[in-house]
C-alpha cells in the first residue's frame, strides 16, 4: 500500500468547486502528518485544464473518459475504483455535496474497504486517520477510525478554508487511460431554477426561517424584519419543501451558498446541510427555542427563544432606531 492521500477534485459545469480546495487543505495536513504524498484525482472528459490550480497537492492524477463528462456517481466510482486498485491510496477524501453524492459509498463497496461518512474534520493519531463525524443532524459528534486498509472519507464542506488549499504552484499531471462500461443512467439536461425576484447571493442581509416559524402566515414576521434591515428572506429546506418559499430562496446543500454581512437564522436547527450554505456569513445571529440546537455552534450571537416573539421584537427595535 502506497499510503497516498487522495482528494477527489470535484468540478461541475466547467468549474472546480470551492470544497475541492478545502479538501486539499485538509488532505495536505493529513498527508504531512502521515509523511505521505497528497494526490488530487481529477476525473472528466477534456477537463485536464482544471488541474493547473490543484498545486496544493503534490501531483494530479487525471482520468479521462467520455463517461466522466458529467459527474455521476456510478461512472466516477468505477473510475476511482480502477485507479485505486492500481495505486492503493491510504485514504480517499470525497466531499459530501450533491454533486459527489453516492461516489464514496459506491467506491467503498467496490473496493470492499471502509467508508466513513459525515466527517467534519480529520486528524492523525498514532499513524492512523481519525474522523470527527457529525451524526444525527449535528447533535452528536463521533470520533471514528477504520479497522485498516484504504478508507474512503466523506467530508462536509467547511472543514477548512478554501484559501488554505489554493496554490500558485502548477502540479505535475499524470494522465491515465480508463476503460469504463457505458453508463446506464443518462443525463438528459440540467434544469435551472426560475429566476426569482431576488438573488440571494447579492444580498447583504438575509433573514432565514426554518421549521420554527411554524406556519406560512408567520413569514410576515421575517419579511418585516428583512424590510427593516434592507435585506431579503430565505429559508432552510423544510420551509421550501412545504411550499412556503420558492426554490430560489433555499439556502444550503441543495440550495444556494451565501456570504452576506448579516445572516439571521430564525427557527433553524443548524443541521449540516443548511450550515454548509451560510457558515461564511460575516455575522450570524441564531434564534432557536432549543438551547442545544447545533446552529449555536456556528453563530456569533445566540438567542434562546421563540422566533415568533423575537422576530417582531427585533423588527420593532430596528425600526425604532431608524425613526
Amino acid at each position, binding site marked *: 500500500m502506497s499510503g497516498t492521500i487522495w482528494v477527489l477534485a470535484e468540478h461541475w459545469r466547467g468549474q472546480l468547486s470551492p470544497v475541492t480546495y478545502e479538501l486539499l487543505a485538509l488532505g495536505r495536513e493529513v498527508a504531512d502528518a502521515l509523511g505521505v504524498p497528497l494526490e488530487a484525482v481529477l476525473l472528466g472528459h477534456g477537463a485536464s485544464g482544471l488541474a493547473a490550480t490543484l498545486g496544493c497537492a503534490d501531483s494530479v492524477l487525471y482520468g479521462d473518459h467520455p463517461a466522466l463528462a458529467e459527474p455521476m456517481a456510478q461512472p466516477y466510482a468505477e473510475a476511482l475504483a480502477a485507479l485505486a486498485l492500481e495505486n492503493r491510496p491510504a485514504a480517499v477524501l470525497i466531499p459530501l455535496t450533491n454533486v459527489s453524492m453516492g461516489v464514496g459509498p459506491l467506491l467503498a463497496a467496490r473496493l470492499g474497504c471502509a467508508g466513513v461518512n459525515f466527517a467534519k474534520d480529520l486528524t492523525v493519531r498514532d499513524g492512523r486517520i481519525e474522523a470527527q463525524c457529525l451524526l444525527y443532524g449535528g447533535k452528536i459528534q463521533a470520533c471514528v477510525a477504520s479497522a485498516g486498509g484504504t478508507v474512503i472519507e466523506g467530508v462536509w464542506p467547511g472543514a477548512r478554508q478554501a484559501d488554505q488549499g489554493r496554490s500558485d504552484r502548477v502540479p505535475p499531471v499524470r494522465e491515465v487511460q480508463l476503460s469504463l462500461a457505458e453508463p446506464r443512467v443518462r443525463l438528459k439536461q440540467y434544469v435551472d431554477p426560475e429566476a426569482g425576484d431576488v438573488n440571494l447571493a447579492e444580498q447583504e442581509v438575509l433573514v432565514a426561517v426554518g421549521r420554527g416559524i*411554524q*406556519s*406560512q*402566515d408567520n413569514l410576515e414576521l421575517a419579511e418585516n424584519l428583512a424590510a427593516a434591515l434592507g435585506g431579503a428572506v430565505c429559508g432552510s429546506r423544510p420551509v421550501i419543501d*412545504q411550499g412556503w418559499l420558492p426554490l430560489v430562496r433555499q439556502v444550503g446543500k441543495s440550495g444556494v451558498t451565501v456570504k452576506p454581512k448579516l445572516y439571521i437564522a430564525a427557527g433553524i436547527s443548524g443541521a449540516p446541510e443548511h450550515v454548509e450554505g451560510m457558515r461564511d456569513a460575516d455575522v450570524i445571529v441564531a434564534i432557536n427555542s432549543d438551547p442545544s440546537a447545533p446552529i449555536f455552534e456556528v453563530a456569533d450571537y445566540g438567542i434562546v427563544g*421563540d422566533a415568533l416573539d423575537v422576530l417582531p421584537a427585533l423588527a420593532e427595535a430596528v425600526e425604532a432606531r431608524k425613526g
Partner: protein
Amino acid sequence: MPDPAATRWIVPGFVWLWALALISFSLFGARVARYIGVLRRARPEQRWDRLPRRLWLFAVNVLGQKRLFGETWIGAAHFLIFWSFVFYASSFFWNLLRGMAPILPVPYADEVGPMAFALEAAGVLGLAALAVAALRRYIFTPERLERSRDATLILVLISLVLLSSLAGSGFSALAHPRVWQPVGKAIAGLFASLGADAGHAGAGYLAMWWLHMVTVLGFLAYLPYSKHMHLLASTFGVFFAQLDEGVLPAGTEGASKLEEFTWRELFSGLACAECGRCDRACPAFLSGYPLSPKDLMHEVKLLVRGGGGDGAGLVGAAVKNETIWACVTCAACMERCPVFNEHVPLLVEMRRRLVANGEVDAQLQTALMNLGRYGNSFGQSPRNRTKWVPALGFKPKDARNEAVEYLWLTGDYAAYDPRVQPVTVAAGKVFERAGLNFGILYEAEQNSGNDARRAGEEGLFEVLRDKNLASLEKARFERIVTGDPHTYHALKNEYGRDGAVLHYSELLAQLIASGRLPVSQKLEAVVTYHDGCYLGRYNGVYDPPRRVIEALGARLLEMPRNRATAWCCGAGGGHIWMEDVPGIEERPAERRVREAAATGAAILAVGCPKDMVMFEDASKTAGLEGRLAVRDVMQLAEEATRSNGAN
C-alpha cells in the same frame, strides 16, 4: 247554524269530509312514512333512555318554548302562535271527528260556549302574534332569516285558518250572537255594516267552516313537503335530544352518505325550521369562515328528502371540505337551537370521513402525528412536560408512585407553552398554600384527546384515552383537578369513568369559601371574565369563576355575550393546530378582546390555556397591548393569596 256534515252539495258534507280527509291524511301519511323509511336506513342510535328527563325536556322546550325566548319578541310571538295552533289543531280534530261521524251526539267545538270564546281568544292572539312574526320577517328581517316562498305560504295559511274561524264566528254571531263571542259580535257588526244580515249567516258560516277545514287539511297534506315538517319533527327532536350534552358518539369511519349517519343526525335536518339562530350565534360564520350551520342543516334536509339521492354523500360535494373544517365546536349553535339540532356531531362525523381519507391540512397533520407519537401537540419529548416544575421551587408529588388526594392534570398548553407555564406555576403555589395533598403524573400524562376527537381523529382519541386511563388505573387519588377545560370535559364526560373532576375555579371557590385559602391582599382590579366554551357551554361551570373573582376583591364586569352566549376564542375543534383561513378580516379572538376592552376592564380573566394563548396573541394584533391584560383566574388567586412577603 247549519250542520256542515249534513248540508248537501251533490253529496252530504260528511262524505266530502271523508273524501278530503282521506286524501289529506294519505298524502301526509305517505310522506311521513317515506321519511321514516329513509331514517330507518340510517345507523341506529339509542335515544329512548332516561324517559323522565326527556319528558321534562319536552315540557320545558316544547310546551314552554323556552329557547325561543332567547330572542324575546319572537319568543313571545312564537309561544302564542304555537299554543294557538295547538288549540286550533285540537278543535280541528274535534270538528273533523264530529263531521265525519254525524251520528255522534257531540256538538261542534264552537257550539260549546266557553270553547267558542277560547277559539276567539286564541285566534286573536294568534293573529297578533303572526303580525309580529310577519313584521319581523319582512320589515325588521334578522340576519339569516329568509323571506322564502315557503315561509310566506305558511304565514298565509295559518292566518287563513285563524281568520276563517273568526269570520265563521262572525257569521254565527250575525244570526245568533252569544256572550261567548265578543270578537264574533264585533265582526258581525262589520259584516252588517257591509250589508249582510241574518239571512247570509248560514251560507257565510258554512263557507267559512269549509274554508277552514279545507285549509287545515290542505296544510296537513302540505306540511311534510315543506320546512314546516319541523312542526312535527321538532317535538320529537326535543324528545330525542342528546342528554349527555357535548358528548360525541363513538366511531372512526365517519359519515358522508345517508346510511352512514345516525337517524338522529339526519333528523336534525327535518326538525330544522331555518330560523337562523345558529348562524346568528356562530363565531365562524360571523367572522366570515365558509360555514353556515343553517345551510348545513339544509343540506341534511335535502339529503333526507332526496332519500339519499345518487348516493354521492355530502362530504366534498354538497358540503365542502373547508366548511367541514371551519367549525370550532363551540356549540353556540346547539345551545341556541330551539329544536335541539346537533350541528357539531354532524360536522365531526364528516371530519372523521375526511381524516379516514387522509384529507387533512399539513399543520393539523403534524399536530396529530405529534399527539400520537409524543402525547402532546407540540412535538416535544414527553419528558419536557414538566419543564415548568423548576420555576415552582419544589417538586410536586409523583402520583405514579404515591397516593394523593388531588391528581393534577395540567393539559398540554399549560405544560409546554411558555405563555401558559406561569399559570401552572401559580397553581402549584396555590395548592401548596392551601395545604392540598396533590401530585402530577409527570411524563405519563398524555393529551386528553378531546381536540383530536373533535378534529375527527377518533382512533387517536381512543389511543390517548386508553393510555391516560391506564395511568389513572395505576395511580391512587380521590379527585382530579385541572385548569384545562378540554381535559376537564374529556375526563368528566368522555372517558367513561366516574370520579370527581374539578376545574381550577371550582376548587378555588371551595378553598376560599371554606377558609382553606385565605385572601390576604384583595385585588384592586376591574376584571371581565370570559366563559370558555368547554367549561361554560359544555359543562355549565359559570358561577365558580365569578365567585372566585369577587371573593378575591376584584370588581367584575360582564361582557354583553357571557355565560351561555359567550363568544368563542376560535381555538377549539383543532383550530389551534390548523392553517389559517385566508381572507378573514377579524378573527374570533380579536373580536372578543375588543368586546372585553369595551367593558372598561383592565384584565380579561380566563379559565382555559387556549383562551390565554388566543387572547394574548389577539390583544397584540388588535393593538390592545398595555390596555388589556390577559390572566387566568388561578393567577389572580395566586396574587391575592400570597402570605406577606414570601411565597
